[in-house]
């Protein structure tokens, strides 16, 4: 990979500085442009009709009253969609080819509350809403299946006939020799069950889509806040029978995504069909209730029959367990999560022997989609629960057990049992730092002082990994036939007619500051101020650079996006220098770029400003040799491609991710014994994402991920009743954490540069869900030994209160130890 310039320029590097974000001024002045701010001539408004049932047969749909309402343009129902389209592409059909049939709109059977069954389009949003009320759908309720573990039972009710069972994907992951390890170990710690709950990081802006299927050109212009439009195009294009070349995806500002906004592609597709039917543009802005019911939830995962072989000194040899991941009613982006967790098989620990029997199931709940920390945080939460329970049950110090089992700084690059290569890090130092930040010794003393006061103190630690830059080849572990591997991103760097520098990215950020960090790295290469570099805001497929992986997701911009920018800007720089050298009659290595000019090194008098370079190429090209004038475009596209190989799908072995950031969190909490309420007294984070391009942006990501994780740990869970009705589908009942619910977060960092990313930077947007691990750990510490274990990632007051008041028999605590020489 191209490294930043080695040119001798007089400025300090812009990269690494906490420059204020370019995006902020427009956002703070309410000059951002979100989908709902956009409009198209003759646009109508769409309203979805959604199933009130979690599972039902659609007996009939009558749109006549709606269509008769003044102002209604047209309607669309599932049967029409079925006639016009093919079922959506599925990642991993069964070996016999069976798979679920999902269309862009519900057909015949609805499988979760909130599933869309019909659409109406009207002149105003109000009329569309009224008309939707007039669409009569007759349902015949069917049995409801909500338990992701029971769904796998052979006699379970089958949700998708064409699939044959409720198993989205199943596989055995087996590395090392777990049976040997269980034999060899001095102790085997057994944990009955751990459960990671269903929630969403809840973008503040719901989904929104404005689409025009132009009857004249057959082009489909999609203004949306989808965060991975190229993936959407790959899935819906074939279903709709349209080429990707027909789609023009556009987005500017997006009010948060967190992965959830990958999910809107089915709605993009069906709204496009509606626009085609109407011959007019159509706009849809999701309500919060729609978003909660159907916008996408994070994966819920249950871990069963966990066995952990541990040596007498606390060395953990590995683990064995069964995992059941509840994907909800349809597979949106799933079952990719069934393999993505294996980017972090041992977590931060040197675990060698691992066996995971993994099943992803279907239930009558909202589809699970990626959510900040996607699939890895569920797994690392599991591992952090394991290490704390090992420490507790074997009466070991939780800090020492971690340090003993951590991958050590000298171990990097470290190859995990499944062939992933951890690039760099220093976990023991991070742990020491974070413990000092919460005054660990003082906190332990406070814990003693408060004992018996009714307010217990708990201290929690959560070490987590934020793996970034996927090798999409891991999808072949699900299905060897899949034509995906590697990763990458594109950028175009150009000079405009008067020499202005502009970057067009393949990414479509949702607050990650790409305009700022992109201009910082470009500025260092071009020897100019980032202020004078325009980064095109948002994404527009008609002119932005892109490849199939383009988008903003999965903690990779700092590697893929930044390297694409560096590559494109280096190419632009080379062209500028070539033209300048020709004009100077000098050699190229005698030319440098400083302050927006090309100069002869050491002679500021001999300078051509970029406007002069642009002039020669764009408007005065007979001054250049003809060959050069035709070749040099000052419009330089670069695609960055990380070096990946295909994994061995049989062994489920290979390098699945390029970089591994770590975050080490620590918390001191106070638990109210009477109510079970948990209050955070102190919270600290040490982040290590290698070289930081803009430390303030990194800090923002750390704060954001921590806030979302604290919300998830203590407040946020999607709760369904036994009929599959979502009980908290608005903000009155779904308690998303707000600024006042998040304590002050102390942050510090270490920088362990990645040897693999070119710049030393690592992706770090997800934070690995660390507060979930940390708060579970702190509550466990407050409960103390001999109690029932913290077995759920969501710990609202009632759950903690039940743990505090638990007085069942010792063999029902949920954990036990079998030690050598004693009978278990």
């Amino acid at each position, binding site marked *: 990979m191209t490294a930043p310039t080695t040119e001798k320029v007089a400025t300090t590097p812009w990269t690494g500085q906490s420059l204020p974000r370019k995006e902020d001024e427009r956002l703070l002045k309410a000059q951002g442009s979100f989908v709902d701010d956009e409009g198209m001539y003759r646009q109508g408004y769409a309203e979805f009709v959604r199933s009130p049932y979690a599972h039902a047969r659609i007996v009939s749909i009558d749109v006549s009253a709606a269509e008769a309402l003044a102002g209604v343009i047209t309607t669309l129902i599932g049967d029409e969609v079925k006639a016009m389209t093919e079922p959506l592409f599925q990642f991993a059909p069964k070996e016999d080819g069976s798979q679920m049939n999902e269309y862009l709109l519900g057909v015949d059977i609805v499988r979760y509350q909130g599933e869309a069954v019909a659409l109406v389009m009207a002149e105003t*949003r*109000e009329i569309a*809403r*009224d008309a939707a*009320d007039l669409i009569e759908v007759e349902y015949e309720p069917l049995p409801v299946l909500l338990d992701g573990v029971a769904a796998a039972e052979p006699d379970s009710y089958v949700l998708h006939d064409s699939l044959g069972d409720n198993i989205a994907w199943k596989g055995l992951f087996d590395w090392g020799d777990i049976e040997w390890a269980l034999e060899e170990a001095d102790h085997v710690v057994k944990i009955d069950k751990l459960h990671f709950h269903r929630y969403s990081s809840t973008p503040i802006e719901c989904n929104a889509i404005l689409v025009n299927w132009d009857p004249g050109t057959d082009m489909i212009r999609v203004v949306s806040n989808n965060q991975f439009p190229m993936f959407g195009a790959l899935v819906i294009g074939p279903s709709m029978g349209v080429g990707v070349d027909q789609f023009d995806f556009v987005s500017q500002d997006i009010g948060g995504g967190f992965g959830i906004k990958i999910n809107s592609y089915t709605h993009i597709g069906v709204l496009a069909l509606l626009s085609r039917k109407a011959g007019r543009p159509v706009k849809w802005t999701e*309500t919060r209730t729609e978003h909660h019911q159907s916008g996408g939830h994070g994966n819920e995962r249950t871990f069963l029959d966990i066995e952990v072989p541990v040596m007498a000194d606390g060395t953990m040899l590995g683990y064995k367990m069964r995992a059941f991941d509840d994907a909800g009613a349809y597979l949106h982006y799933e079952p990719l999560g069934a393999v993505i967790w294996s980017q972090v098989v041992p977590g931060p620990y040197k675990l060698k022997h691992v066996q995971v029997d993994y099943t992803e199931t279907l239930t009558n709940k909202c589809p699970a989609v990626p959510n900040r920390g996607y699939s890895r945080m569920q797994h690392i939460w599991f591992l952090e629960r394991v290490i704390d329970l090992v420490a507790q049950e074997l009466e070991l110090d939780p800090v020492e057990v971690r340090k003993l089992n951590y991958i050590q700084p000298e171990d990097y690059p470290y190859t995990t049992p499944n062939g992933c290569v951890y690039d760099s890090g220093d976990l023991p130092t991070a742990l020491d730092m974070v413990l000092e930040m919460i005054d660990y010794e003082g906190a332990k003393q406070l814990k003693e002082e408060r004992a018996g006061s009714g307010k217990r103190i708990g201290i929690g630690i959560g070490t987590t990994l934020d793996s970034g830059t996927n090798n999409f080849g891991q999808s072949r572990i699900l299905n060897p036939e899949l034509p995906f591997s590697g990763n990458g991103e594109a950028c175009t760097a150009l000079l405009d007619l008067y020499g202005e520098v502009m970057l067009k990215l393949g990414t479509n950020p949702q607050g990650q500051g790409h305009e700022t960090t992109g201009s910082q790295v470009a500025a260092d290469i071009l020897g100019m101020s980032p202020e004078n570099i325009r980064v095109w805001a948002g994404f527009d497929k008609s002119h932005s650079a892109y490849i199939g992986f383009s988008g903003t997701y999965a903690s990779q911009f700092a590697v893929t996006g930044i390297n694409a920018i560096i590559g494109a800007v280096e190419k632009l720089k080379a062209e500028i220098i070539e033209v300048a050298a020709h004009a100077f009659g000098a050699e190229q290595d005698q030319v440098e770029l400083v302050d927006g000019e090309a100069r002869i090194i050491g002679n500021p008098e001999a300078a051509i400003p970029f406007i002069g370079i642009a002039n020669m190429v764009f408007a005065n090209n007979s001054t250049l040799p003809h060959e050069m004038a035709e070749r040099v475009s000052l419009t330089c596209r670069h695609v960055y491609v990380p070096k990946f190989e295909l994994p061995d799908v049989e062994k489920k072995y290979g390098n699945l991710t390029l970089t591994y950031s770590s975050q080490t969190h620590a918390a001191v909490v106070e638990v109210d014994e*009477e*109510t079970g*309420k948990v209050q955070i007294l102190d919270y600290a984070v040490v982040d290590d994402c290698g070289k930081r391009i803009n430390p303030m942006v990194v800090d923002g990501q750390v704060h954001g991920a921590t806030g979302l994780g604290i919300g998830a740990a203590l407040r946020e*869970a999607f*709760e369904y009743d036994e009929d599959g009705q979502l*009980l*908290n589908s608005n903000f*009155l*009942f*779904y*308690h998303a954490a707000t600024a006042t619910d998040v304590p002050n977060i102390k942050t510090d960092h270490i920088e362990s540069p990645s040897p693999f990313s070119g710049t030393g930077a690592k992706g770090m947007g997800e934070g690995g869900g660390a507060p979930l691990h940390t708060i579970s750990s702190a509550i466990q510490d407050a409960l103390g030994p001999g109690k029932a274990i913290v077995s759920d990632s969501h710990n*609202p*007051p*009632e759950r903690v*209160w039940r743990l505090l008041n638990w007085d069942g028999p010792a063999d029902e605590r949920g954990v036990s130890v079998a030690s050598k020489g004693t009978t278990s």
Partner: protein
Amino acid sequence: MLLAAVDYYRPDTLDEALEALVSTEGARPLAGGQSLVSILKLRAASVELLVDISRLEDLRTIEVADDGAVRIGAGVTYDEMATSPDLHQSYASLSNIAAHTVDAQVRNRGTFGGNLCHNDPINNFPPVAVALDAVMHVTSKNGDRDIAAGDFFTGYFANALSPDELLTGVTLPALDGRSIGYQEVEIGEAAARAVAVVATSNGNIESANVALGCLPIPMRAPGVEAALAGAPTTAEAVAEATASAADGIEPLTDADASADYRLAMASVVAKRAVMEAIEGGHHG
């Protein structure tokens, strides 16, 4: 807007409002709209006419009588309660409760009367009115009547008014040296809540009114009140006396908490509210 079509009328006088309520089928008073508009957005209620009472001067005063009793107009907002010097003087704890109700946006619009009439189990003021033995002043084209707070709340989102009646104001009796404790288990808005109005002298409790909220009907706890009367003001005695606070209540189960948990919390919030009252009253 996501509301179904609805007519809107803002009368200038109380009499016009009452006239509209009695003469229009499906008419409904609109006060701060902080609950009613949300319900209309969900299309969960069918209303033909909204009679906006939020600017009726007759409903917008706070009057303190010489004996210390307070009459709060139904249209007084939480913010006005929080910032009224008169109320702060006579009923400091109540203005503190108002000052911490929800957020500034809701406090600017939500009204004392709307809060009581709506009787959402999460609402702050129904158990306050019950604990204080407040008197609810009601009027309609047929004349005026007073309803004791204990009879006003009839169920989940329900009260004793007929559709043509308006709550005009609420009289809170003089505190006469009593203090108000107000405690909740905050989950979302609240999962359990208790209000205690306590008089003490010489280290003993002279009298205590205890009401529990977060229930379809806010309830007094007579057993607790009897046990508190004459008891010492110590934490132990109060804990013992409030231990039976859950007797006879039927809390709800929802996404926030089960009925079992809320039952267990009843004595916790009752104890804490009584102790807070003993220690000088609610400060927010």
